[in-house]
């Protein structure tokens, strides 16, 4: 087991290193040259020279890459000349808000998807299974932003029951007092995940229900309820636990869209605003952070899978 964890960890480090190479290449693909892209087309030659010196751009490429890695190792994700702040600071300001949004959406999605999946597995190929399957198929094909805007149109504009904007404050207390504003963003992000999670839960539950130990339990007269909740559910949750780790990229992408639809000042909105203002250092820095999150998620999912299911050995 520890050998597997060690190998998996080493593999993640290699992938992480390659991601930094990709980001480094992107940095050099910036329109014009990196200095002009970051500082603006009309930057003074002295400023350009200073930037080149700071990034080591007047040195050989391998040295530049070393400087880049050195900066990263010290938590330096770059400096935003547009916002006049370090990328790490900007990220730290926005990050708690995104975490709140993601945690709520994840929670709602899991709490809704598990019973839905169980129900579909039990009622397999019956009318309600078909309806739910159809609904999740359609939801899965929804552009996330359109889903959000349709929810705004229905609940905020036509019915006037919920506000169209997310809470603007950066404090957690502000979010709690303005909880109505969180309903639509969380719903948007959760609905898409519910569609795919419940599909996985359904097939994982169907697999469990086909096992021999379920037949044994039935034969010795265990009630349907206990079979479902004690015997089948626990084993079906193992793939779900890893799925949550593996769905981080999709959820992060969803967060960009949701935050921009509801004007929710998290990391996703920061990312979009930086794209609009050509603030490349923020774009590169945040993309790297997102990739680190995904790699960590994959690692935790793989190790979690091995821990939760002792039959699995690599």
């Amino acid at each position, binding site marked *: 087991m520890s050998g597997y964890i060690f190998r998996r960890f080493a593999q993640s480090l290699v992938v992480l290193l390659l991601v930094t190479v990709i980001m480094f290449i992107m940095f050099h693909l910036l329109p014009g040259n990196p200095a002009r892209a970051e500082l603006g087309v009309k930057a003074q030659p002295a400023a350009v020279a200073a930037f080149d010196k700071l990034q080591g751009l007047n040195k050989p490429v391998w040295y530049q890459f070393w400087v880049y890695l050195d900066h990263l190792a010290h938590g330096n994700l770059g400096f935003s000349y547009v916002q006049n702040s370090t990328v790490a600071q900007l990220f730290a300001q926005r990050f708690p808000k995104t975490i709140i949004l993601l945690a709520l959406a994840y929670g709602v999605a899991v709490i809704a998807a598990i019973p839905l999946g169980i129900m579909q597995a039990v009622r397999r190929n019956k009318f309600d299974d078909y309806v739910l399957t159809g609904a999740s198929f359609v939801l899965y*094909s929804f552009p996330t*932003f359109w889903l959000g805007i349709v929810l705004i149109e229905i609940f905020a504009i036509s019915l006037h029951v919920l506000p169209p904007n997310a809470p603007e404050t950066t404090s957690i207390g502000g979010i709690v007092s303005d909880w109505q504003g969180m309903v639509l963003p969380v719903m948007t992000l959760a609905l898409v995940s519910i569609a795919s999670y419940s599909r996985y839960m359904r097939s994982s539950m169907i697999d469990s229900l086909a096992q021999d130990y379920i037949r044994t339990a039935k034969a010795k007269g265990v009630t349907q309820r206990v079979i479902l909740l004690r015997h089948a559910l626990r084993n079906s949750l193992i793939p779900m636990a890893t799925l949550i780790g593996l769905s981080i990229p999709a959820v992060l992408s969803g967060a960009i869209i949701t935050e921009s639809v509801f004007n929710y000042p998290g990391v996703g909105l920061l990312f979009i605003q930086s794209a609009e203002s050509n603030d490349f250092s923020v774009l590169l820095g945040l*993309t790297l952070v997102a990739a680190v999150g995904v790699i960590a998620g994959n690692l935790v999912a793989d190790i979690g899978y091995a821990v939760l299911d002792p039959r699995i050995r690599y």
Partner: protein
Amino acid sequence: MADVVQGPEEGAEELDKEGLFPAAPAVASRALAPGAEPLSPQGVEGGAARPTGSMLRLTVVSFLENKLAVAGLGILVLLALFCFVGPHVYLTNQKTVNPVINNLGPTGSHLLGTDGEGFDILGRLMVAGQSSIEIGLAAGLLAAVFGTLYGAVSAVAGGFVDAIMMRIVDALFSVPALFLLILLAAIFSPNLPLMIVVISFISWLGPARLVRGEALSLRTREYVQAVKVAGGTQRRIVLRHIVPNTIGTIMVNTSFLIADSILLLAALSYLGLGLPDTTPTWGGMLSNGTEVIFDGYWWQLYPAGVAIVLTVVAFNFVGDALRDSLDVRLRRR
């Protein structure tokens, strides 16, 4: 030199024809090659010999037996007619802005109303559909072709090269798609052809992994060994032997890729990083529609969204049905 190679290669070709249509799938190697990941949906094979009839015919029959497949295909045919024949039947002005008739609700003369620039929305839906579907198709196909070749080459090369090529895929996979897409769109501010390249750059990773998984088991089969012994080049193994045998996986995956490409394009348009309004797309229409929802112009919000969902659902249906029918061919009877 070429003549020397010619003889044995012809022989290998004969062997391959045997291998392409194995009489009983059970003969085909069931175990994956050592180190192969169980990624391929066709990794599990089994069952007895198939009844007579060509492989293609059986696939087509079981595809058409599937109601979802027929529904998906039907929707796609109707959409294609709507977008490509529609503008010749339902004539509207989609060239010049006409502020006098902007933001009109649905009426007899404008069935779905007009948008903020006075374009008829039904007509705009047709024209925008052309570019949305074309970009989706092109990006999906490009990603499938590149991903397939990459995966097959990686598996055939094996060893260190394979490890490096796959770690590159892992690294790109760990950057969330939308982050990478927005970054690329911001760096290149793409025009139409570049947009196709950028979108396919996001989505070639999936087919690369799938095809590599399958190619790892294919390359150990007897007919590939025979090509090697007969002196066939690696290029020949990849193009003539590995790729044709993964075509089922590729077809399934391509229909999902097309669906995803249409969604990615729409997301970019919404975020303001899409194509300029001179190339109307469904995503662009939606994006314009979302700006006026507080004015109550709901008819600008729904049509393009419904069109996107219909198209994506249809491609997903076709992909699902293709997967089922290819599976059935291997498992049933």
